[in-house]
């Protein structure tokens, strides 16, 4: 029983990062209909921003998260406005090609600037934790989960209770009708992609505290984001939160199966995604449209 509870807790803690990785990806997919293959690269950019601020100025990595968000928002806004907006009415394949290309460019720029060494962010409290009923809870993991929940709540609030959020909803519902009530399509698209990138940046900051990063480490996060969004269901932040936590749980239990280790964890997670797609294509929390 204690082992079971421990697995649940570890799974939820790991899920926090998946939530953070997933929300931005889900937003961009849901609103812009872009499966953003550069998402993982943007996550890693956020990781490097945190690493840079931590090593150069000794800033606490959790305090760098807002900087990650702002920096990546600006980068994302510029990418959408300058590059991706040009193919917004093109078939889906073009967005795959373009975002895949962006992924390569970002990765190589990072290699130029930071080299291919592994970098890690290790504040004094990293590796420490507290014990609760025989279960060790690492501080960083717990704070990451908190940060991810805060990020999702903030995003959900922004989308449902603000002017910007209403414009994003309107554009997602009917972009022609939205323009005819005075909403600037290109600006709103760029803001949406910027928000997605900002979430990716925060996720990257969290990841840099948990494991070492390198410019080429982003691709698994694109995949994870994909699985998380499918699991939860497209179109709502809360669904992605459920998807992320579910993914963390499945992974934790997958790794605990004797003899499986981390080798089968991914296979189990992707197997679950296929199962969800077959039995409940709208996702665990999704609504059929």
């Amino acid at each position: 029983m204690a082992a079971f509870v421990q697995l649940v807790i570890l799974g939820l803690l790991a899920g926090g990062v998946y939530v953070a990785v997933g929300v931005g990806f889900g937003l961009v997919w849901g609103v812009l209909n872009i499966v953003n293959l550069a998402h993982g690269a943007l996550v890693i950019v956020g990781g490097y921003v945190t690493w840079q601020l931590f090593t150069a100025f000794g800033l606490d990595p959790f305090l760098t998260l807002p900087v990650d968000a702002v920096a990546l928002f600006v980068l994302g806004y510029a990418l959408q406005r300058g590059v991706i907006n040009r193919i917004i009415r093109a078939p889906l394949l073009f967005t795959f090609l373009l975002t895949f290309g962006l992924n390569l460019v970002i990765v190589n720029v990072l290699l130029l600037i930071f080299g291919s060494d592994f970098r890690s962010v290790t504040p004094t409290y990293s590796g420490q934790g507290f014990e609760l009923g025989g279960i060790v809870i690492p501080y960083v993991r717990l704070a990451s989960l908190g940060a991810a929940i805060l990020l999702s709540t903030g995003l959900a609030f922004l989308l449902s209770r603000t002017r910007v959020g209403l414009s994003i909803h309107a554009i997602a519902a009917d972009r022609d009708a939205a323009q005819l009530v005075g909403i600037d399509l290109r600006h709103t698209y760029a803001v949406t992609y910027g928000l997605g990138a900002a979430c990716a940046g925060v996720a990257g900051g969290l990841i840099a505290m948990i494991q070492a990063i390198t410019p080429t480490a982003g691709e698994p996060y694109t995949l994870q984001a994909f699985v998380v969004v499918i699991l939860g269901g497209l179109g709502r932040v809360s669904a992605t939160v459920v998807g992320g936590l579910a993914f963390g749980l499945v992974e934790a239990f997958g790794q605990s199966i004797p003899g499986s280790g981390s080798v089968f964890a991914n296979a189990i997670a992707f197997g679950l995604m296929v199962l969800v797609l077959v039995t409940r294509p709208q996702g665990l929390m999704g609504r059929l449209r």
Partner: protein
Amino acid sequence: MNTAAEPQLELRGVTKRFGGVGAVDGVTFQVEKGEILGVIGPNGAGKTTLLNCISGVHRVDGGDIRWEGRSIAGLPPHRIARLGIGRTFQIVRPFGSMTVRENAAVGALFGSSAARRGLKEAFEVADQVLELVGLKAKADHPVSALTIPDRKRLEVARAVATRPQLLLLDEVMAGLNNVEIDEALEMVRAVHATGVTVLLIEHVMRVIVGICRRAIVLDFGHVLAEGEPEVVLRDERVIKAYLGERYAKRLRGERGQDSAS
């Protein structure tokens, strides 16, 4: 007509082609401030294309569109909306993920002179507009719960919430029964009474006759006739465009007998 006052909206030789076919071909007319102008014509005459040109959905291939003396041809749709030209769609296009009230509020938030309108104020405007079109009781309903006539009302409400000076209505009466048409007519009159110029595309002739002082007939992208609705509808070219040459001849024959007897 006062020649010193310039028209609110002026189309000069507006042309829009789709693959060589002129859907709208050299259309010239003016809209005076405060009037209700009807635009009629058979299916495929280019009525909706014309609205798409004015509202910026289509970029015109030739001619000019002037709003209060300034050219607006080539501006993106959101800029034109913010200048004060509101528009509805023939096939209603509400924001399906929102409530009725939120739909109207989006119009109020982003429409003309909305530059710094707050969220709270936008919802107040939304409530006023919903009352005007008779949807106040259903403000908190999801859009999916609305009947077709109510969806048409919402379409108008969202456009009116942008505080337009000119409202382009694309067949808001189509698909409604007689009672519903009367209600919709009341709604258009109520909107017009708030000082909004109305340009309305319509198939239902009794709407045009009942509400417009002036009507324009489009056929194959050209202006076929222009004038008082009763006069325009008797025009032989108009009858021919709608009902074909044979019917026009027969009608001419009957009329000839009428005047003879």
